[in-house]
């Protein structure tokens, strides 16, 4: 996991208690007070969803909760902001899917 454990200014991470959670069916580990976005980033996952219409990959953008780019489904609750939600034990997270656009012919639609 790529994390700054001992920061020159901020010092050491206070609690190193591990928490496990699931993202798209695979289980990952994170520290107790991390946000979902940070935990996934530390596990090397940058893509949190795709654009609902065009399918382009999307992930963290503002990381302070107002751009909504990091919205994921947490425990079957959709549109939860990953950058503001703390990881809890046994959390199941699903990334956003691409929605069908029957009324709009988007090129390259499989």
């Amino acid at each position, binding site marked *: 996991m790529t994390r700054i454990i001992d920061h020159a200014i901020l010092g050491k991470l206070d609690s190193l208690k591990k928490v496990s959670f699931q993202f798209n069916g695979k289980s990952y580990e994170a520290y107790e007070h991390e946000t979902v976005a940070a935990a996934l980033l530390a596990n090397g996952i940058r893509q949190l969803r795709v654009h609902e*219409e065009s399918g382009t990959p999307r992930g963290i953008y*503002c990381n302070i909760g107002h751009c*909504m780019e990091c*919205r994921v489904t947490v425990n079957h609750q959709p549109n939860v902001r990953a950058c503001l939600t703390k990881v809890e034990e046994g959390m199941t997270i699903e990334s956003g899917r691409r929605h069908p656009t029957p009324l709009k012919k988007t090129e390259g639609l499989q």
Partner: protein
Amino acid sequence: MIENKQLIICRCEEVTYEQLQSTARQHTCSARELKLRTRAGMGFCGGRTCRIALDAIMDSFIPDENKAVIPLKYQPPIRPVSFGTVGGRHD
């Protein structure tokens, strides 16, 4: 403005600079109308990311002054809410 025509101005609706420019030229419309036509500023983030860029760009497109003066409105809800919460289902 950077000449990159494919520059995406509105992330949520993936509206590019070129789309905005051609729509504005074709319909010579006001800021609000450009928003209605291209959906720029109507995305999930409620215009937080692109409203300022949109206002600035629209000033450069729109020929006469008074049309461009009305800035883009802040539409409720200020944060996306599900129909469940709006409809009172608090489970």
